């Protein structure tokens, strides 16, 4: 189901481009701000929540997922070099799954792990806070990766559309309209954090629904990406 060669090529392609640098910068920013908040405000729940939720889960984590996923698929589709992967007797789902493994490891290293560490920095006496944000980040990140992978195969403007989706849907509307929680990866992750760390980031969302929604989004994204890649129209410059 996985191709070690595609995984290996994927790792090299992410760090062979400038996106690789951005992937490192984002978690560094999160950790730096967490240290700053802790230094200035001390061990404060509101400040810690605001930092990890408002900055970490809503901004940094989806950006890491977007950069990692689009960095794995979009450039190869843009310049046509994906044809070297497609012209092989490999299931398209294997190609997608192998690429997503790399993206999810990136999300773990540059998203979930920094969230966990930032949680420990902000609330050193309450490890469940860090565990909640770390675990939710990993699950939400995986779902984001699957969605962005599908976007990358559907359109050449995956990064722009991904950013608009994050800003408008997850960020702006998610904050304004309550009902969005049923259809928002960030809110599903927040519900999981609520349960683990006994917080109240999101109201009135069953945990089972949140977990199922994350799983379905991930599965559907992977499957749709493979399907789209199978019927992928690739031509030259003509």
């Amino acid at each position, binding site marked *: 189901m996985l191709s070690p060669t595609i995984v290996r090529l994927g790792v090299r392609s992410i760090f062979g481009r400038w996106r690789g640098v951005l992937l490192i910068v984002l978690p560094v920013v999160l950790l730096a701000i967490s240290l700053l908040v802790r230094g200035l405000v001390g061990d404060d729940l509101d400040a810690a929540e605001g930092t990890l939720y408002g900055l970490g889960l809503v901004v940094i984590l989806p950006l890491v997922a977007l950069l990692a996923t689009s960095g794995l698929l979009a450039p190869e589709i843009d310049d046509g070099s994906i044809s070297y992967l497609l012209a092989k*007797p490999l299931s398209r789902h294997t190609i997608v799954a192998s690429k997503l493994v790399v993206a999810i490891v990136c999300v773990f290293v540059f998203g979930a792990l920094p969230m966990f560490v930032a949680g420990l920095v902000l609330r050193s006496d309450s490890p469940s806070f860090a565990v909640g944000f770390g675990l939710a980040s990993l699950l939400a990140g995986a779902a984001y990766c699957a969605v962005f992978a599908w976007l990358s195969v559907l359109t050449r403007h995956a990064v722009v559309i991904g950013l608009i989706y994050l800003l408008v849907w997850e960020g702006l509307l998610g904050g304004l309209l309550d009902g969005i929680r049923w259809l928002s990866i960030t809110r599903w992750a927040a519900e999981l954090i609520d349960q683990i760390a006994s917080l109240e980031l999101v109201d009135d969302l069953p945990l089972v629904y949140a977990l199922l929604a994350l799983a379905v989004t991930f599965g559907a994204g992977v499957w749709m990406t493979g399907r789209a890649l199978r019927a992928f129209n690739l031509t030259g410059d003509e």
Partner: protein
Amino acid sequence: MSEIRIDHVSRWYRNVVAVNDVSMTIGPGVTGLLGPNGAGKTTLIAMMSGFLAPSTGAVTLDGEPLWRNEQVYRKLGLVPEREALFDYLTGRQFVVAMAELHGLADPGAAAQRAIAQIEMTEAQDRDISTYSKGMRQRIKMASALVHDPAVLLLDEPFNGMDPRQRMHLMELLRTMGAEGRTVLFSSHILEEVEQVARQIEVMVAGRHAASGDFGAIRRLMTDRPNRFVLRTSDDRLLASALLGDASVRGARLRAEGGIELEASDFGRFSEVLPRLAREHGVRLHEVTPTDESLESVFSYLVGS
């Protein structure tokens, strides 16, 4: 022995027709796909590569559909026109990776064989980003040959190659054709195609304009009427003399001076013109062909 069949295939993008009701069969040996830029060659090759669905019709390899069928790549090798490669790898790493993706038993050995075949052994450990255009073309070729495919499709493979690399690639294609492989390459240069290909398929404006061995295509292209503008010391006298010869189809005196002339048999005309001019004491100042471009050759083919 493998065969690609294209059966009444059309492909359009919204309301632009790129390939218009084309049928052809590509069998063992080297076939050249000839046509001017924008004739639909790349679209046709993309459909033969399984990268594009025909809007109507069917493209098959030994009876199996090429679209949505990744197993065909076991016997199909592709050399795309686009330059992009995995620049962060060395030539060898790239070819080994391609061998691994094919699931070959010994990817390292297969890669070495393919790299030696295209004479890239010396440069194989350099990053692809440092390669010249010709070297990129060759490493693409190695990646397409690594699994020893029965069918090889190459889109404009001679672009950007220097004369020595060109000769070498031509030799390689000839050898592969002689081994019984089905080799198809596209080009917009007649001389290139006729040096390598036994069979030539001509595409013009999305249509299959002609098909045959290079002798037949060459005759089609040279027997077309040739147009010239002549500047002479006595236009009227020479024009009337030329009209008396069978190789000249028409002549018109231009208001601004000079003769517009259409010749049907180029070989004979090139011999008759100086002779008649000498006989009538007319000086030839200038003889200019007006339709020598390849596009005009092709448009003639379409019209016929």
